[in-house]
């Protein structure tokens, strides 16, 4: 796995030496199970229990650990991955059927813009944008036939877009103190969701995430991490699953809310395709 390499790419001495260093942040983000548990702390409950209050405070702290430039470089990494992926696909003769090229051409255009935007945004903070990683979309040992089999390409496309939605959502809190950056990230976030909806539907899936596993979302189970936690039906402290029997029940409740992923969860997914 290339996760460590990716972390190294994201790291630099300046941050390692500063308070709340990137490496520390990643270590803390690494306690995945804990973060997932905290993320589901009910807000109504939080008000009535001091223990829950502390947990809510921890959740805030976790959400605020990454600095804005770290978040932007993280976003840039994802956008590099997507741009590279769609560029190769569009350049591969015979992969994308003529009827679908308009869609993927539009998505490529957006991901290319996003790369340029996040590069400029990092520079705008006086930081150095991370260089583009080297990607391997066969996933190394997975030996995926990504650019030979349209079905594989489409499945990965869906996975990347759904992951992108979750990744940006997971960083909203870390950008909350910068109105401009938060808004820019939201403006990218919803475009990723448009892409995800379109690709999912082209694959015969619902445009919205149906909870469940990778398999139930139509992609190989090796990518379970992409949909882990999406089946959540507890929002704002209330179990909603049983409250809407006449409106689609628990399935519709799952679909009605997209769930975030932490930075390390996203990098673990993206890292599968990053060589260096």
């Amino acid at each position, binding site marked *: 796995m290339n996760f460590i390499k990716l972390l190294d790419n994201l790291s630099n001495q300046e941050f390692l030496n500063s308070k709340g260093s990137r490496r520390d942040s990643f270590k803390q983000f690494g306690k995945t199970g804990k973060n997932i548990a905290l993320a589901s702390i009910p807000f109504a409950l939080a008000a009535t229990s001091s223990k829950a209050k502390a947990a809510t405070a921890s959740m805030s702290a976790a959400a605020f650990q990454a600095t804005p430039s770290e978040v932007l470089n993280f976003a840039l990494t994802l956008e590099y991955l997507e741009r590279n992926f769609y560029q190769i696909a569009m350049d591969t003769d015979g992969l994308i059927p003529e009827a679908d090229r308009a869609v993927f051409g539009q998505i490529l255009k957006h991901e290319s813009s996003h790369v340029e935007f996040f590069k400029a945004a990092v520079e705008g903070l006086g930081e150095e944008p991370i260089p583009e990683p080297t990607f391997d979309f066969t996933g190394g040992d997975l030996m995926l036939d990504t650019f030979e089999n349209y079905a594989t390409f489409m499945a990965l496309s869906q996975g990347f877009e759904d992951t992108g939605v979750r990744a940006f959502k997971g960083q909203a809190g870390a950008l909350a103190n910068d109105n401009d950056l938060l808004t820019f990230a*939201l403006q990218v976030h919803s475009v990723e969701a448009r892409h995800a909806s379109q690709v999912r539907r082209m694959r015969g899936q619902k445009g919205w995430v149906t909870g469940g596993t990778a398999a139930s979302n139509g992609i190989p189970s090796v990518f379970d991490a992409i949909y882990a936690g999406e089946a959540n039906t507890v929002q704002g402290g209330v179990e909603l699953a049983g409250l809407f029997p006449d409106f689609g029940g628990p399935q519709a409740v799952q679909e009605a809310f997209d769930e975030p992923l932490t930075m390390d969860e996203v990098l673990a997914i993206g890292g599968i395709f990053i060589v260096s």
Partner: protein
Amino acid sequence: MKKPVIKVQKKEFAPIENNNSRRQFLKMGSLAVVGSGFLLSCSNDDDFTEPVDPEEVFDLGSGNLGILNYAYALEQLEADFYTKAVAGAYYTGLADDSEEKQIIRDAWYHEVIHREFFKAAISDVAPNDILPELEFDYGSIDFDNRDSVLSTALLLEDTGVSAYNGAGKLIDVTAPLGDVYLLLAGKIVSVEARHAAAFADLINPGTTAFARDGILVDLGGTGLSYDKALPPSEVIAAAGGFITTEFTANQLPTS
């Protein structure tokens, strides 16, 4: 249809102190799914401690409460629209197993869930200051007509996306539950965007409509690759034509 309840926003948004808040939240959620449709009758009125003055117009309020009420207004509109859409001849005439019917039905479910969720969330922290149930008028929109329903659905979903994108920065994350509200807005806005893409593609299948240049904006000269982020004033001006219940938004945060 119940007559709109009109009252004046007076209280500042306060942190939850009521030990019964969770129970209340659950109660609201349960009530919401009892009976036909989502007409809550007048059960809410018991919570109002001050006499209602019909001359005074409801204001969405300030701070995070104002933003929650603002989102609740938009979700009421969307949910009401789909509730009417699924009663129309266009929807009922679709084949039960068609994707088109599934998309509209799911959007209806999701928006009803969003609406009831906001109702419960606001009732939990500010039961006396929740936006009343609004009434709507869709003018010339023909719920029996495919083009009319789909184009209006797309308009509402695109508006919802730009509204949540613009509201994110208005949420005060230093206030109680502020970070939770911001995340919830993020959880909902991407579902609105998924809806918007699906409706756009139903209207113009297989094209760039799902994320078309005409709805996206440029950032920093990098291209038309970003959804809009609109302030409440613009959103209310755009969606307000459908809302017949008068309310004001005089105290919403602007940054």
